[in-house]
């Protein structure tokens, strides 16, 4: 039986379930699922998928919160040789439908409550969820994916107004997971927590290190997410040893959650990724949990993590933390003309789902090898660390999520009464990145701010909604008729700094 040397993510679970069947794989509040139970449930479900007619590379959409059942569904899909498509259940209905259609998912697994419903989107028939599988037969004849085959598709903001699917292979995910296991010495006594949903690439760290290393994946209860002091209490009481989240959540834990007032003797690794974590916050975090290795991981969804930087012990926060140096599986270089970071190596995406032209544009060939154009401007410091300088295009990061401003504009102009929209992002001392949309309406009072925002909320996830909408009679344009984003950016910055206009 293939073990940890395999590059197939589901092989790891099978191996660990045989080696340590009774060890805890998933903890969800008071409920513990052992490796044996997790594997048997997933394998039983995989056999049902195959019986139902699911073939290798078919898509299975998981419209589920991050629960035990969601993790079972991940491994069931992979064991069947299929591709899972995680979709956040709180996305607007329209966005969920578009994503289901775009991915061509045959099965959809959904439902906030137990048990989830499994439905065939073509025939409307369903597969029952069996909490305790009976006899396990047929596992050995399940189809096996190749390491280069896609394991899942993550849908992310697209500049043309439609989300686009980033296709990641078993091999690409394996490169990151194996490196992280080695670098941070993940082992069977670890208890890993990652509050990110499955639709976010941070979730590859907890669920796949669980399978690879026999560690326990401790799911973060949804009801504590709004109250950082309970999130902090969760870290303490659930004896978390490895934490991985976006900086916004850690910032909430430091401030409202008063993280520094307690001790976390078991907490040995704190990783963050997805957006810039201001230097002073990084220094506070390291001081609050002095024994923990804190590290900034960098990489777009298309490449997963490709560079990283351990927070130096004496870091005082007076300068930004670098994005660091390359992971061993990544080759990075800087495009001389633009300062853009180019990334090659094992963790690269296979491409965008069903978008051959965008896939082609995303890569550049260097010495015969594909490199992904990150769109991030960087510089190389004398000590070999890369520093993040900004974006080349109109993509912004907010709360760790990627937002194409073009998608925000597209949502606004779909509204009756809005003729034209231009969105800009600017730093706001209080909230991080704030999005300001400038809108030209059909007539004064044709649309209110609340109406426009509610309209956007029908198609955009909450983190993409504009914070402020400014109604203008004309949108400033340059001599060639192009929207003057620089001028708009200055107005937005003025608004962010107290001038309420």
């Amino acid at each position, binding site marked *: 039986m293939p073990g940890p040397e395999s590059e197939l993510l589901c092989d790891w679970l099978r191996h660990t379930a045989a080696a340590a069947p009774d060890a805890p794989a998933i903890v969800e509040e008071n409920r513990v699922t052992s490796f044996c139970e997790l594997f048997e449930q997933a394998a039983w479900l995989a056999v049902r998928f195959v019986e139902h007619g699911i073939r290798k590379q078919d898509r299975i959409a998981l419209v589920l919160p991050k629960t035990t059942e969601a993790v079972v569904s991940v491994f069931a899909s992979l064991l069947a040789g299929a591709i899972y498509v995680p979709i956040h259940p709180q996305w607007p209905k329209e966005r969920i439908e578009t994503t289901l259609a775009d991915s061509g998912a045959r099965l959809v697994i959904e439902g906030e409550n137990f048990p989830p419903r499994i439905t065939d989107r073509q025939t409307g028939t369903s597969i029952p969820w069996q909490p305790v599988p009976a006899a396990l037969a047929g596992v050995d004849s399940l189809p096996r994916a190749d390491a280069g085959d896609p394991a899942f598709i993550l849908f992310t903001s697209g500049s043309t107004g439609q989300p686009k699917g980033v296709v990641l292979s078993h091999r690409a995910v394996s490169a990151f997971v194996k490196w992280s296991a080695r670098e941070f010495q993940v082992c069977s006594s670890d208890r890993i927590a990652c509050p990110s949903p499955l639709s976010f690439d941070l979730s590859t760290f907890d669920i796949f290190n669980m399978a690879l290393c026999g560690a326990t994946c401790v799911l973060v209860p949804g009801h504590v997410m*709004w*109250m*950082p002091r309970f999130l902090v209490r969760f870290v303490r009481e659930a004896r978390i040893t490895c934490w991985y989240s976006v900086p916004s959540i850690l910032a909430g834990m430091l401030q409202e959650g008063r993280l520094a007032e307690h001790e976390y003797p078991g907490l040995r690794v704190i990783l963050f990724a997805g957006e810039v974590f201001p230097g002073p916050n990084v220094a506070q975090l390291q001081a609050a949990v002095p024994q923990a290795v804190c590290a900034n991981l960098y990489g777009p969804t298309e490449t997963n993590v490709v560079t990283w930087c351990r927070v130096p012990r004496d870091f005082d926060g007076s300068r930004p933390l670098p994005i660091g140096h390359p992971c061993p599986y990544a080759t990075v270089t800087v495009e001389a003309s633009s300062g853009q970071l180019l990334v090659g190596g094992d963790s690269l995406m296979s491409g965008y789902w069903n978008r051959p032209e965008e896939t082609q544009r995303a890569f550049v060939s260097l010495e015969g090898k594909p490199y992904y154009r990150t769109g991030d401007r960087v510089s190389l410091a004398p000590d070999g660390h890369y520093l993040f300088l900004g974006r080349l295009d109109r993509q912004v990061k907010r709360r760790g999520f990627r937002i194409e401003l073009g998608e925000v504009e597209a949502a606004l102009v779909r509204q009756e009464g809005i003729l034209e929209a231009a969105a800009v992002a600017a730093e706001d001392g*209080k909230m991080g990145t704030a999005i300001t949309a400038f809108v030209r309406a059909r007539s004064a009072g044709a649309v209110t701010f*609340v109406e426009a925002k*509610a309209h956007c909320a029908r198609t955009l996830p909450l983190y993409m909604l504009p914070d402020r909408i400014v109604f203008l009679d004309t949108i400033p344009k340059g001599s060639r008729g192009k929207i003057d984003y620089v001028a708009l950016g200055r107005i937005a910055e003025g608004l962010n700094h107290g001038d*309420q206009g």
Partner: protein
Amino acid sequence: MEIKAEVRQFIAENVLLGVHQTTIEDATPLITGGLIDSIGMIGFVAFLESRFAVEFMPREIDVHSLDTVERIEELIRKKLADRDAGVAAGDGQQIR
């Protein structure tokens, strides 16, 4: 204490960045209507707790109980009444 007015003012100043107060009606959906997202909720919940001197327990608040100004007022009034009557909240544990 005018709970609704204070809540409106906070949202207008901190969440909507200065939008005129009257655009938030008693029944305007704040969360399901897309006005506040999950990270925004962290600051909003912290405001409610400190301004009205109440402490929520994890299962006490959700998308439903905090979605409109009128439901928020209802929740705060209930918390204040419980506090004055000396009722222990939620699972009984107060943490700092």
